[in-house]
């Protein structure tokens, strides 16, 4: 089974508020994600980025519109273990070692498991070779998040969903982890949906950046990033990279002002 395509048509998601009015978290979302692409979703807080991920992975249902993943409904795709998910907090189990944490997802929903790759080797690859048997409490923030990333990649998913995975990390750790994320991705070429609020992160990682605006949450722009891969550290200082950053920044500013006009 190869990679997947995600298709969303006219997707709308409402949340009932305390005053019984309904908040439009996402409005009329049309989005097609080609197999094997790295797509980032960027936008100010409250624009429905995380909601979008929860809809794709079948945790929530839209009020209107259709979503398919690999031609399946999100729920069926989850049943088939098509997803790997990395939340903002590493969400490791404190009583399991690093190795135990990346192994446990293989022990649930066994029928659909796609076989365990050499998880120890993967952990070693991201620099956790000496920490295989350590507990999460003994790890730094960056090491915890790397464990969470290996946990997701180890599932051999068709679609990787990452919800601001590096949001809580310092700049140096963040850049090192971006590099490792790209290396793991080059090997698997899964389809990636990466939520972020960092412009340079979005440019560095993605083939395509989806710009969203809040109130109501909607897509305002899609920018293709046509930079060669592999994208190493040097790329970050190149003029092409800066040009993309500027373009994205402009697009985001538009998204912001739209939001302000509406509210």
């Amino acid at each position, binding site marked *: 089974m190869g990679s997947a395509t995600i298709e969303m048509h006219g997707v709308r998601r409402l949340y009932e508020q305390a005053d019984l009015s309904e908040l439009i978290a996402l409005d009329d979302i049309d989005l097609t994600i080609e197999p094997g692409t790295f797509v980032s979703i960027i936008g100010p807080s409250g624009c429905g980025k995380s909601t979008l991920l929860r809809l794709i992975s079948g*945790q929530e249902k839209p009020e209107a519109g259709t979503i398919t993943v690999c031609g399946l409904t999100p729920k069926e795709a*989850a049943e088939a273990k098509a997803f790997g998910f990395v*939340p903002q907090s590493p969400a490791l*189990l*404190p*009583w399991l070692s690093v190795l135990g944490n990346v192994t446990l997802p293989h022990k649930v*929903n066994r029928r659909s498991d796609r076989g365990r790759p050499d998880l120890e080797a993967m952990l070693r690859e991201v620099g956790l070779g000496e920490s295989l048997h350590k507990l999460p409490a003994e790890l730094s923030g960056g090491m915890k998040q790397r464990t969470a990333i290996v946990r997701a990649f180890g599932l051999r998913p068709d679609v990787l969903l990452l919800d601001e995975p590096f949001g809580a990390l310092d700049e140096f750790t963040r850049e090192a982890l971006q590099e490792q994320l790209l290396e793991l991705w080059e090997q698997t070429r899964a389809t990636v949906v990466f939520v972020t609020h960092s412009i340079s992160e979005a440019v560095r990682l993605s083939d395509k950046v989806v710009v969203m605006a809040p109130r109501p949450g909607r897509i305002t722009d899609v920018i293709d990033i046509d930079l060669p891969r592999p994208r190493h550290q040097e790329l970050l200082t190149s003029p092409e990279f800066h040009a993309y950053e500027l373009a994205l920044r402009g697009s985001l500013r538009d998204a912001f002002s739209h939001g302000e006009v509406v509210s």
Partner: protein
Amino acid sequence: MTLDPGTQPAPRQRPHLVVPTLEQLAARRLRRRTRLLRPAYWLPFVLLVAVLGFAWELGARRMPYLFAPLSDIVSVLREDPGYFLTNTLVTLGEALVGLGIGFVAAFALAVVVSEVGVVRRAVMPVAVVLSVTPLVAIAPLLVVALGFGMGPKVVLTALVCFFPILINVATGLRAVPSPVLQVYRTVAASRLEVLRHLRVPASLPYVFASLRIVFPLSMIGAVVAELSAAGSADGLGSVIQVASSQNRLATVWAAIFVLAALGSLLFWLVTLAERRVLHWHES
């Protein structure tokens, strides 16, 4: 001392550590090992015990109907240790059997409560009320209903332990952070799998918190039930009841001291088990 450089492992680069010399190391080890021998560690406790002992003896002179001299208590214990031992084992047995039954029942209900919203909304308010009710008060009724055997003791102990365990474990089973649940729901883990791999382990700190409460409570349950069925059976509660009616104060106090020691022992065992099982938990 010279070693063949070929067999020596490469020294690890650790510029951030100050490595002590062998003499320093020995001195530090000794200091750490003899820490407990320093007066600052044991003197406060010993002083307090001495003051309490003195106050006790004073009390025994002034209020002979409340306190017995420590020497009498010790000699009662030494005269017939077998008597206290058999009665201790009876009380301990009742307490542990009751606790075991209460624990299994409470844990099972906690699982149902955490999984089924309807049951939770029905059970939890009642459980909260009953957990603050002094259930030991029904001991006399239990004796009337269930007789003088082990029945009322075990039932009372189980009942007294049930609600604190239920409330703690039900809370613990729902203590899994939502990002963790989300990770495992995206791989379509079943409810049973979530329960087994996430909820039950996450509840362990709460289980131990409840055990710390419930082990002493189980002793109270067993003793109160024995007090209410005095003379009919063995157990330290019966010992206390019979001895106090015959005004043998030293025996009463001896039994109470044994109960205190037993309670501390159980508490210590729970702490020990907790440290082994919950090494991952910072507490």
